[in-house]
């Protein structure tokens, strides 16, 4: 039963890298998986050079969703937004290094979905930006 929850994943779950809000972030996005309540917020700081100088995330949820977010932040530091937009789900699943059932793949990919929305410059679900700003 341990193949799914291998050392690497549990380590990223218990000691998430780049965890916490990011002061002065140029891009951020929050998303949830309504089925299981997993939550991720991604914060990006894109510098003059157009590269991601810093990335943070906050969130709560299962080990798979949180470890995948932590791994993703490590993968994208120093990359351009265009490079981030090009990351596919196989890359994320490969970083996790485990085979997931379809239900759990959703947990693993929440971080990528959130990251891409941030990279595309979204701040809220399209049409709800004003509501978000007012809060």
């Amino acid at each position: 039963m341990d193949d799914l929850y291998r050392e690497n994943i549990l380590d990223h779950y218990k000691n998430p890298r780049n965890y916490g809000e990011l002061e002065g972030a140029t891009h951020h996005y929050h998303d949830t998986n309504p089925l299981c309540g997993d939550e991720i917020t991604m914060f990006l700081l894109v510098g003059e050079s157009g590269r991601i100088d810093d990335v943070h995330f906050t969130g709560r949820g299962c080990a798979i969703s949180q470890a995948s977010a932590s791994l993703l932040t490590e993968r994208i530091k120093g990359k351009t937004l265009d490079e981030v937009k090009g990351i596919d789900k196989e890359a994320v699943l490969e970083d996790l290094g485990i085979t997931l059932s379809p239900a759990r793949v959703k947990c693993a990919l929440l971080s990528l979905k959130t990251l891409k929305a941030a990279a595309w410059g979204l701040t809220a679900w399209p049409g709800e930006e004003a509501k978000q700003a007012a809060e």
Partner: protein
Amino acid sequence: MAVTARATGSAATLDVARIRQDFPVLSQTVHGKPLVWLDSASTSQKPRQVLEAMRVVYEEHNANIHRGVYEFSERTTAAFEDARAAVARFINAPSPREVIFVRNATEGLNLVAYAWGRDNLRKGDRVVTTVLEHHSSFVPWQQLAQDVGAELVVVDIDDDGRLRLDQMRAELEKGAKVLAITHTSNGLGVIDPVKEVVGWAKRAGATTIVDAAQSAPHMRVDVQDIGCDFIAFSGHKMLGPVGSGVVWGRAALLERMRPFLYGGDMISRVSIERSDWNELPWKFEAGTSAYVDAIGLGAAVRYLEEVGIDAIHRHEVALVAHLLPPLLAEDGVTVFGPHDTRDRVGVVSFDVKGIHPHDMATLLDREGIAVRAGHHCNNPLMTRLGVSATTRASTYLYNTNEEMDALVAAVRKAKKVFGL
């Protein structure tokens, strides 16, 4: 129909080994381990007797009901109406005319909200419900209340997870047009004292709807004793096939209501200018009913009656009594809902600190144990408990103490995997 297990006398315990022989799926293995089915609150497994009743229709006399004058249609129609009579007896309905076959509890509860609610709920009316409701008992009234400008009052639970009866009584005394209440909570396993609450609601002049999706499969539900106006439940949670469900209502109310769906079978006469509705219960059964599923539900109800619904309830309470002490003794475990066995059914929702319910359910699955992780279509309750999800083990007549032990052992193993 031969049922292999039978409880005799009031103190009888179930012959679970024999019951299990009626459920072919229970001998499956998962990840090389014997299947431990602890997700019956989501859907129950089916005994051969139910599958057989459905096979007989399909293989021996399948025909649409209420339509043909030939032999097959008459036989199938008779079997369908027999199933209705069996369900009526099971819930002690005054008449089978009041038993309407629908697809599931959700459809039944929506039928009431649409066909009764839309014509009766007015601006300023109060709809009283509880934080324990499943979304299918809650959302239809929430939406209708918003549409017409009625007030939605949501009664809280105490720290044990039991309904705040003081608050319920006070709210009903202020006046209510509707009471929508679950009989037992699918999230916490507590039984609401619906008879008492319905009594208060009646005094306030309210129409009362009881969600029996989690009670009808597991304990005696007597609509005349409860005194409510409507109840709904799903066949698939009580050994019947998916696609079978029931809404029961008082004839006097059903007769005054407009139909929910229009179409074939529910009509007595149609001209270009007008339509007249069929009699009860067919007025509410538009189109071709899932008649084979309803016949399967009839077989399920007979199975439950032969085993004995009170014996089933006692058996499940005993399983909870066996499970709770070792589970509660485990470091880091929180059990939501009461920690005793008074007024409860076989639903145990828990959390283990440091392990998200989804991870727990995945690790239990590796041990062959099927439990549900998530919000159980109970968002208001999860918010009240301050969690986003729980792990829920739920029992039925075919579960054993050994399976409860297996669950506790697997929880311990999961903690080890997470280094806890």
